[in-house]
């Protein structure tokens, strides 16, 4: 699903150049649930941004479902993001004046899906994350866990090829974190490819594979025995 070869990225910090990614080689198959781990400054967020087409690499190859991702203009990047990728952020990033339902329906709006179909689909995904009854509430009326569920539903709504989650439990307490991970696991069980960036060990171990990043290179890449989050959830 994702093929990355010799990816380099450096940031210009005044006169110094900060080499953040120093040649990443990395493949993800369809249906995988991968945790990308590393301390801050290891380059994991940068990698995720490049994978998410929110940022561009200096050199290297990036194929998404066989499609080379390079030299994208803003419009094309936006279209690819809309079609191929779903984002889940640490700070939820819901639009605060839109209801849960409207937030979930927004990616479909940008896909040009008709209003009625949008609402039906959005409701379906809200139901999947267990928030059907909350569909007409504003984000301010929801708890942190509920907001993240809405964000997951939104990421799912466009039916992307890959879900990218950036510290998706970073702003949540551990119980809620497990609930969200339980949801992520269930989505993965349905065959969705998911990448999770985290620095929390327990969260990483709820994935099926852990990729360790240190100082811009992959130091460890191993498949693990998945810890099911459902056992922590009542």
């Amino acid at each position, binding site marked *: 699903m994702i093929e990355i070869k010799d990816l380099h990225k450096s940031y210009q910090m005044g006169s110094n150049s900060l080499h953040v990614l120093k040649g990443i080689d990395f493949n993800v198959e369809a249906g995988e649930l991968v945790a990308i781990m590393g301390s801050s400054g290891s380059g994991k967020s940068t990698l995720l*941004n490049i994978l*998410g087409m*929110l*940022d561009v690499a200096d050199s290297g190859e990036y194929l998404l479902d066989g499609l080379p991702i390079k030299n994208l203009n*803003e*419009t094309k990047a*936006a*279209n690819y*993001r*809309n*079609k191929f990728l779903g*984002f889940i*952020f640490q700070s939820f*990033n*819901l*639009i605060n*004046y*839109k209801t849960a339902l*409207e937030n979930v329906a*927004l*990616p479909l*709006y*940008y*896909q040009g899906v*008709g*209003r009625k179909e949008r609402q039906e689909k959005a409701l379906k995904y809200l139901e999947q994350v267990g928030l059907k009854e909350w569909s007409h509430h504003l984000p301010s009326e929801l708890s942190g866990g509920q907001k993240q569920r809405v964000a997951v539903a*939104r990421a799912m709504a*466009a039916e992307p090829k890959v879900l990218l989650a950036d510290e998706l439990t970073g702003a949540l307490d551990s119980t809620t974190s497990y609930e969200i991970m339980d949801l992520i696991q269930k989505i993965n069980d349905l065959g969705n490819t998911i990448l999770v960036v985290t620095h929390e060990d327990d969260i990483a171990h709820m994935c099926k594979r852990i990729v360790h990043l240190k100082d811009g290179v992959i130091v460890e890449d191993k498949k693990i025995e998945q810890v099911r989050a459902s056992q922590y959830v009542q």
Partner: protein
Amino acid sequence: MFSRDTWREIFVTIRKNKLRTFLSGFTVSLGILIFITLFGMGNGLVNTFDEFFSQDATNVIYVFPGRTSIPYKGYKSNRTIEFDNSDLKDIEETFPMFVEYISPRIFRTATTTYGEESNDYTTIGVDWGQQFAEKTIIMQGRYINQRDVEERTRNAVIGRLVEVDLFNGRNAIGKFIDIGGSVFKVVGVFQDEGGDNEERQIYIPYTTRQLIEKNTDKINQIVIQFKPELGYTGAVALEKNLVRFLKDKKFISPDDQNGFFVRNVAENLKQNQDFAGVLQLIVSVVAFGTIIAGIIGISNIMVYVVKERTKEIGIRKAIGATPKRVIGSILLESIFITTVSGFTGMLIGIGVLKWIGNTLKEDYFITNPYISTGVAIFATIILIFFGALAGYIPARRAARIKPIVALRNE
């Protein structure tokens, strides 16, 4: 871009962000409202000005007698100049191409009596053409006519307020009044836009006045109404020739400015129109300034609005909004708000002007303030256009920001 979905999305955004919508709409409304009120008031001021200076016909030259100040051709200075009937005839014969009517005016104040009521009024001996120079409007009966002048009849035309004073509102036509010891029959009642003073005057044939005064042929003033086709330049030329002719006839030095005086209404009118033009210009500059202030106001708000929405723009981009759609929706939203509020402000402004009407005429010299629909709509569209432009520039910049940067914006 203009699908129903786009509009629905915009309406939702507008409805959910009431303060923002109110602020930008209010700025535009207020700007247009102030512009229209100000511009209308300015027009009202110009109206007052026009009204003030256009009570009398504009194609009139008045000639007043004076005293010479320079000795000339054997005559000493300080000689009193008088006009008589022959001057009327000579002017008419010398300038037949220019003169439409010519009339003398002989002013006398006389005690006028009807029954028990008595009062002092200015009586003016005139020729029948005088009616047109003063824009005298006959309410009842008729004006002095040619027969009155030729046959020296004792007919009089009295002002509206003379009738009010002497007849207590009863009809004066056909009644006989005593003017300074002579009996006149009232043949007409007139009104005059010139005001109360002019409506307390009495017109009689100048020939009758001369007959009463021992059959003299002296007259006070000469009123010449020239043909309107002459225009301003023609009027100035006529005035020049007339002065030369009269100076020659009355043996007044060409350099003597005091032998008689000429007032050319056309020339005054030109100056007054120039003055009114300057007034209009000042009003326009002020109104233009208001529009500029409005544009700056809406620009500020648009910059703030886009700044406030930077994160939202980042979210929208991350989930697949293209820059075009981001700019499009911000732009459409701002155009929608400015259009609705702009035209609301415009209608309120026009309403305010209607409501003011003539209430400010007495104290503030503002008559019938108005703004032409074209100017109002033009100003509104200008404001909408610049409101949109002011929204476009920051929106374009915001849409170019990388989503990752916009998302970090808290």
